[in-house]
């Protein structure tokens, strides 16, 4: 009985971690912010993945470059091409993560970005294109926490998932019983 109690305590002690675990494996979050794609890589428990190489390519597999996560697991990638950007991370131990930044997230007028960056202090004197770029950046910044929250909610393992899974297994056990019982009855 003592041993059993120790086991229960051990499981409860380890179980503290259950609450903040989202899913097993690794994930990337990224969003376009002007001509930059910024984001971070993290593992199931929420721990950031440091110093790992993220490969960036187009959906058709064309190499667009790569970027390394920093000490906080964050990265910034400078966009050069107008296309969907697929970010791919493989930690080498059987885990991988993928995230796509859609072309529609990137600013409409690409070549003019540099000039917009240089002289956007005086918003009044900006051309229409440059103004829309400033607005786009501001909106992207405001939307980011919302998007992060949605991703977190989607990945959260809820109690009903766990109970549902256990229920499935018990149900399958019942089905196996049914077939075995049928076989036994047929033998009689």
């Amino acid at each position, binding site marked *: 009985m003592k*041993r*059993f109690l*120790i*086991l229960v305590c*051990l*499981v409860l002690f*380890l*179980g503290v*971690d*259950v609450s903040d*675990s989202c*899913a*097993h*494996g*690794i994930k990337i979050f990224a969003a376009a912010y002007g001509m930059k794609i910024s984001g971070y890589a993290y*593992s*199931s*428990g929420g*721990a950031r*993945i*440091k110093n*790992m190489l993220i490969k960036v390519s187009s959906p058709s597999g064309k190499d667009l470059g790569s970027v390394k996560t920093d000490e906080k697991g964050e990265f910034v990638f400078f966009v050069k091409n107008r296309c969907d950007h697929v970010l791919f991370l*493989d*930690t*080498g*131990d*059987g*885990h*991988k993560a*993928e995230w796509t930044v859609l072309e529609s997230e990137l600013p409409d007028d690409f070549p003019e970005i540099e000039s917009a960056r240089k002289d956007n202090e005086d918003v009044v004197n900006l051309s229409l294109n440059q103004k829309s770029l400033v607005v786009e950046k501001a909106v992207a910044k405001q939307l980011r926490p919302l998007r992060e929250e949605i991703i977190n909610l989607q*990945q959260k*393992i809820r109690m009903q*998932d*766990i109970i*549902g*899974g*256990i229920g*499935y*297994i*018990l149900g*399958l*056990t019942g089905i*196996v*019983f049914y077939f*075995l019982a049928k076989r*036994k009855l047929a033998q009689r």
Partner: protein
Amino acid sequence: MHISDGILTGKVVIATGSLSVVGVAIGIYKVEMEKIPKTGILSALFFVASLIHIPIGISSVHLLLNGLLGFLLGWMAFPALLTALLLQAIVFGFGGILSLGANVLVMSVPAVICYYLFARAIKPDSSLRKVFILSFLSGFFGVFLAVILLAVILFSAGKEFTGAAIVLMTGHIPVMLIEGFVTATAVGFLFKVQPSLLTCK
């Protein structure tokens, strides 16, 4: 510990898939009426145990309990683990459908090895200490062999072997010890209160 979809090559997916089908078939062939509730409960336990995460290194590790399953179920560990892993892939998104065969092998082969190495050595008149030590070893080597098998499968899919193996092995040393204790405690408890639940005849 779960291999994600898209990591393995087509050949490896087919090879691991067919091998795991063979294992599951042997498990189903050996099914006994009395073992079904035990199989179901342990399958559910495995399904839930993977939610207990311990962040280590660049990744995080979780309890596996495949040593415990092998110790108590023998070949029946294959169908039990297939069910649990399939549900983990569908419900939680752990691992993947294409890599399911590989994941079943990584978990079940060590389970069956532990069954033959350790569980079969236990007799109804064994001392509690012997049961404790053997089940500890079962929990320990369940994880140890799973790590080696995982590294081998990743290697066959074109990944570097030593690097991945070292990262996985160092990350899992605490898990091996914890699993050893969890398995030993669970089996020791069962041996005391319900010896018939152990595979010994």
